[in-house]
């Protein structure tokens, strides 16, 4: 229940092939597979991707429970996407029509297509986040973006922002959990089935969480200034260990998937 919220997107230390991947190889593979998710439209494509994700979840010892835990929380949103497409998309092979509603095989397929893409995107990100430390992610982003520095884009400031944001996720999640518990103890009705009460119940949670997030941001900014932070001097670890056979295997598999997806869906 409450704790699954914390765990999706939280680094889980472990020693698995996915954890051992060079972060650069891992994040390039991640983006390549992200492209595959976006390109894929067919049943064959989704089946292959699904199998790949399940094996990654297994290999990384993340387990399907955590990989898919984030998805439960956006269940309503997914259903909405599906229904919108199923009801309004003017697809082929209509089954039923009334005013501006069209239910068609094409529309249902389109709805399932979009919902599946969201599910796969979330699963892929949660595998990356549970197997890679925030530091590794930041460094790699800075490395990937470094060509932009020529254009006078403050890449390192962005990298620092990402890093701080990622590192604060568990802290804020923990704080949110405490606030949820504290307000429950004050008899806040969080699980009321009535929509109006549900909306009212959010205020006691959202406000303290925001207040504490702003307070933290403020304190952090002060602390950084006090320690002489002036921006633009954030250093990443320049040297990264070389690629191993495992890294090449990961890159090959993800690029192969991408190529197959491009050919299949041309």
């Amino acid at each position, binding site marked *: 229940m409450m704790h699954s919220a914390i765990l999706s997107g939280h680094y889980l230390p472990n020693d698995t092939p996915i954890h051992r991947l060079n972060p650069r190889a891992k994040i390039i593979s991640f983006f390549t597979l992200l492209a595959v998710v976006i390109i894929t439209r067919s049943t064959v494509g989704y089946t292959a991707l699904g199998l790949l994700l399940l094996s990654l979840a297994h290999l990384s010892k993340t387990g399907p429970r955590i990989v898919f835990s984030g998805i439960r929380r956006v269940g309503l949103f997914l259903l909405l996407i599906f229904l919108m497409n199923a009801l309004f998309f003017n697809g082929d092979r209509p089954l039923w029509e009334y005013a501006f509603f069209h239910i068609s095989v094409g529309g249902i397929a389109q709805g399932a297509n979009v919902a599946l893409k969201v599910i796969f995107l979330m699963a892929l990100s949660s595998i990356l986040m549970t197997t890679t430390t925030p530091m590794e992610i930041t460094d790699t982003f800075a490395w990937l973006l470094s060509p932009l520095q020529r254009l006078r884009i403050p890449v390192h400031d962005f990298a620092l922002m990402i890093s701080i944001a990622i590192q604060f996720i568990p802290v804020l999640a923990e704080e949110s959990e405490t606030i949820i518990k504290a*307000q429950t103890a*004050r008899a806040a009705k969080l699980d009321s089935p009535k929509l109006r009460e549900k909306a009212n119940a959010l205020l006691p949670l959202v406000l303290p969480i925001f207040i504490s997030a702003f307070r933290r941001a403020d304190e952090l900014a002060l602390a950084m200034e006090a320690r002489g932070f002036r921006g633009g001097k954030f250093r990443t670890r320049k040297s990264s260990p070389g690629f191993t056979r495992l890294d090449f295997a990961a890159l090959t598999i993800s690029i192969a998937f991408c190529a197959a997806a491009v050919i299949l869906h041309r």
Partner: protein
Amino acid sequence: MSIVVENVSYRYAAGTPLESAALKQISFTIQPGEFIGILGHTGCGKSTLIQLIAGVLTPATGRILLDGKDINQRDFKREYLRKKVGIVFQFPEQQLFEMTVERDVSFGPRQLGLPPSEVQARTRQAIQSVGLDYETVRDLSPLTLSGGEKRRAAIAGILAMEPEILILDEPIAGLDPVTRKDFMAFIRRLHQEGKTILMVSHDIDELSAFSSRLLVLDHGELILDNTPEKIFADKARLSELRLGVSQPKEIVDSLREKGIDLPSDIFRYEPLLTALINRFGGQNE
């Protein structure tokens, strides 16, 4: 109003690589009118235990009975639990959210569906009882209060629900020494007015000054459950658990070592003072 904790265990992040057993097979009973102190090293499971008792966490195994009824049964009325058992979390000032102190303190009573006149009477009484002036603070934003005042306001929000059992998680942590003393006096008054108190604290002095019973946790297990006299009698055991004894007890022990004969079961300041006066004679005015 008794609470029975029966073979309760709890694990965080069950089913993941981060899984950890926070509590193992805890059993004890809280009788009405007790003042129970909970001691233990950081991370031993104190907060987890009291959150289970307040019903904001659900035990993995075992039961928690309020007047004989399992609070985690489906047919158990949650609102009944909220009315009877109040919990003040660590740093409760972080849960304030309403526009005014009055609105915030009255949040709990309003949620319980009490009539408006009752809500207002309770709010006023709760704010006064924590030592804030109702007329002064009622329309202020809780965020403009000082740190100590914020904590008072947050505690008032729990007291306004008029729980019979009050659970406090490190209520004096992070307060200055004078405010701490005020707070402890206040908690003692609540106890004298008839509330059952369950209090977690790092401060052995403050805890032993008022508790009739101490629970000592270590690595998720309930190691000791006894009166402060009995627990402080075994110093070696306490230092194994990385805990000390109260200051007065420390003083009595060192005086006894120096050959000054004092009763060894003293652990509070007043009896120490009386014993010293008896031993050496006081100045008569």
